[in-house]
C-alpha cells in the first residue's frame, strides 16, 4: 500500500478476498487493478477462516471481469512460484502465459513479489508508467 501511495496513485482501495474483489470489479471506474492470484473466498476475520483459499482466485476474477465486460487493466502480483494442478504443479511463468492468452484486453503482466527483495517495485513501476503514458 505504501508503495502505491508513493507511486502517486490518487486513491487505493484494498480488498482482501475473492468475494470483496468480486464486488469491487462490478465498478468499472477503477483505472488499475493489482490482483493477487491466491485469495481466500471471504475476508478472513477472527470469526471467519474465509471458507477456502482459491489458488486461482485472480484468474477467476479476471474471468468475471471479462464476463461482466468490466475489464479493468490488471497487474497480477503474486508471491507464489507454483500453483496446484491435478497432476503436477504449474509454474508461474506458464500461468502468466495462459493469462496473457485468455485476457488479452486487460491483462498487463505478472509481478513476482518477495518480502526481502525490491525488484517487484521496479517491475510494478514500469507497468504503471506505461499505463499512465497510454
Amino acid at each position, binding site marked *: 500500500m505504501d508503495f502505491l501511495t508513493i507511486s502517486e496513485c490518487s486513491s487505493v482501495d484494498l480488498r482482501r478476498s475473492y468475494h470483496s474483489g468480486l464486488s469491487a470489479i462490478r465498478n468499472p471506474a477503477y483505472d488499475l487493478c493489482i490482483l493477487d492470484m491466491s485469495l481466500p473466498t471471504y475476508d478472513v*476475520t*477472527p470469526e471467519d*477462516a474465509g471458507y477456502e483459499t482459491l489458488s486461482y482466485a485472480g484468474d*477467476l476474477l479476471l474471468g468475471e471481469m471479462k*464476463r461482466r465486460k468490466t475489464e479493468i487493466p490488471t497487474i497480477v502480483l503474486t*508471491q*507464489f512460484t507454483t500453483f496446484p494442478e491435478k497432476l503436477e504443479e504449474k*509454474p508461474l511463468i506458464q500461468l502468466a502465459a495462459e493469462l496473457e492468452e485468455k485476457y488479452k484486453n486487460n491483462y498487463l503482466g505478472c509481478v513476482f513479489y518477495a518480502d526481502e527483495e525490491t525488484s517487484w517495485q521496479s517491475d510494478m513501476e514500469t507497468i504503471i508508467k506505461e499505463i499512465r503514458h497510454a
Partner: protein
Amino acid sequence: MLYIETLANLYSRVDNPFPLTHLSKDDSIAALEFFSERRPHSITADFLLRIQRESILQAPKIEQVDPIQWKLASIEEAISRREADLAISLLEDFTKCHVQLPDCLRTHVISLYFDAYREQGDHKSALRTFINAFKEADYLTSRLRVADFLQELSNSLPADVASSPDFLVARCVACSETVQDLYIALDDFLFAHDLSKPRDIFNIRDQFDTRIFAFVISQVMRRDVLSRGGYCASSRELDEERLFLLNSLGKITSGKTEFDFASEISTLNKELLVYAANRHVNAGRISINAEMIRDSAELIRASFIRYQALLEAESERNITLIPLSDLSLNENESPTETSHELRTKESLQVFAEMYFTILLDLCLFSEVCGLDATLSARIRHGSLNNMIRSPFEDGWLITRKSSNKKDYLPSKHWNDYLLEHSVIEEARDRVSAAIIRFTERLDAIVVHLQKRIIQIQVSNIDGFDILIPQYTGNPDGIFNYTELLFDTKKNEEFFGRAASSAEDLIDRILECFFTYTEDRLEDIRRFIANTTHDQIRECVDDLLEDVRAVGLPNRINFKFQDEIQKSKISLQNMIQSLCEWFKFKGISEFKDFPINVVFDSVLKAINDSSNGLLSAYCLEVPNIILKGDSFHALYDVFFTLLYNVVEHSDLSSSEIDLTIRGSMNEDILTFTLENNVNPEKDLNQSLETARSLIEKSAAGEASRITKEGKSGFFKIRKILERDLRRTQVTQNVNTIHTQRFSVSLGFETHGLISLNENTIN
C-alpha cells in the same frame, strides 16, 4: 469368467479394429449378459451397437437381422445422411411399436431423438428430449453430447430458451465437473430472472418440475458453487443460505425418499453450531468474576467500619493525611509520632489493607475469580501453544518433541518428500535440522509469552514488598498494576472517602480495575501484533534462508518457499485472532445447547491447530440440552481434558485413537475419555502422578490453578466447583489393557439442564 470379462471389455472399445464376428455366437451372448449385469448402460449400448452394425453388414439376408437392430441402424443411417425428418418419422414409428425396451436400448433411442432434433435445428425439442430423459434417470442422458449441443446453441440462443430451467440444467450437466462453470450457469439464470439471492429461486418454483428443481437446489446450489458468486458475505452466511435452501426443498419433497438431505442438513447444523460456539469462546477470553468479588465484601466489612470510625475521629481533630510512602509500616517499630499522626497512619493503613485485599487477593490473584486464573486457564495453558503453532502445521514446517520431552523429532513429512525426490541424506538431515531449529525458537517464543509476558506485574512498588511479599508478580508482565497500587493517598481519597459501604468500596475499585485492565489488554494486543508477530516472522525468514542454504533443486526450493508464504499469511490471520482473545468477554447470550456441541467445538479447535487431525474419535454422549451460560466453562473443562490427551499421549494427533463416552445416572453426568499412548511411555508412572494430582485437587489445594504444567486437574475442579457451583465433582484415572489411558469426570447436572425448547439450533 475372466475370459468373458476380458473379451467383453476388449470388444466394447470403439477403437477395437477387429470385427465382432471374431466372437462366436455363444461368446457374444455371454459378453452381452456380462455387460447388462455389470456395466453402465452406455458401454452396453456401445457394445450392442457394434453387434448391430456388424450383424447387419455381415448378414446375407435382411430377414436374418433382428428387426430392432435393423430399425435403429436405419435411423442412424438417416441421421448420418442429414435426413432428420425421416429419422424422426422412423423414430416415432419405432417407439409406437416398441414401448418396452431395456434401458440400454432406451438410452440409444433417446440419443437418436436428440441427434435428430439437433440435425433438424429444433433446439427446443432437443433440449426437451434431454430434460425428459434427465427427469426420469440421469444415466439415460449418458450418450447425449450435451456440451457440443450447448456450444452449437450459444450462437443462436433465443432469450426464452436461455432463461429456461431446461437450459440451466443442460448447462449444469454439461459442466458438472467445474465449479466455476456451474456458478456461471446458475448466475446467468438468476440474472435472467432478476433474482439477487439463491433462495429467491423459490419465487419461480412453479416453472420447474419437482425433480429438476431438487437437482438444481441440491446438486447445483452447493456451497462451493454459491461461494463463487457475491450472494453471501461470509462463510456463515453461506452455510445459512445452503441450510435454508435444503430445509425449504425438504418441505416440497417431504415423503419422497429419493430426496434425502437429512445428512447434509445435520452436518450444516452441526457446523453452524460449532461456528457459533467458537465465536462465543474466542471473541474475548478475559473475564473477572465481579459477582464473586462483590460477594467477598464480608472479608473487609469489619475493616471498613473501623476505617470509617477512624476517619470520623480524624475529621473532628482536623488531621492532615500523611502519604503512606512516608510512613513506616513495621509493626515492631516504636511509634515516635504524636497521637493524631498515629490515628492518621492507622486509617490509611486500614484502607491500604482493604484496597490490597480487593485488588491483589481478589481481582488479580484469586485462584477462584482473579485475572491471573483466567489468563492461566483460558490462554496460557494449552490454548496459546496450539494457536501459535497452528499457521505452521499445514505446511509441516513444525515438528514436536519426542516422548522424552527433550529432543525434537525429525520432520517425517519433509524427509519422505525429499527422499522421494532423490535428495541425499546429508541434505535431508540439514533440512530436518532447520525445521527443528525453527520449532525450538517458536516454542521459546511461546514459553516467553506464557511465563514472562502474559503475567501480572506488581513487584516494582517501593516499600510495598513488606505488604505484599507473596505477590512478586513478574517484572516483564504486560499486566502491570504498579500504578494502580502505588499512590495509596490518592487511592484513599478517591475510593475510600467516597465509599458509603464495603460493597460500595468494592464497586468503585472494581470499576477502576476494569478500566485499567482494558488499557493493559490493549498493551498486550499491541505487543502481540507487533513484537510477537515480528519475532515469529524473523524465525520464519531464517528457516527459509536455512533451507535455501542447503542447495536443494529449484523445484523443491520453490515448494518450500510456497509453504512458507502460505504460513506467513496464516500467521497474519492467527495474530489477528489471538489479539481478539485479549478482550473482555462480552455479555452476549449463548443459547442453550446440546452437550455434543462442546466436544465438537473443542475438537475443532484442537484439530485446527494440529496437523493430522484428531479425527479417530468416537463420541457417544447423552442427548441432553444444557443452559447457554454454562457453555464457556464446560468448553474450558473439556479443552483442558482433550488438550492433555494430545499432550500426554506422546503421539501425533493422527496416531491417537480416542473414545469419549458420556452417561447419565440419575442426576450425575459422567464422561470417560479413553485413548492409546506411546508404547514407550511408562503408563504406571503417569497413573501414579495423575492420581496424586487428583487427590491434591480434591483436598482443596489451589495454588496450581494459576500455573501451567501439572495443573489440569486443579483447573477443571476449580471451574466445576467455583464457576459452575458443582458440589459432586469426581475425577478418576485408569489404565485399560496395555497402553490405553482413561480419564473420567463426573458432576451433578442439577441447574445445568435446560428446560427450554428454544435451543441454539
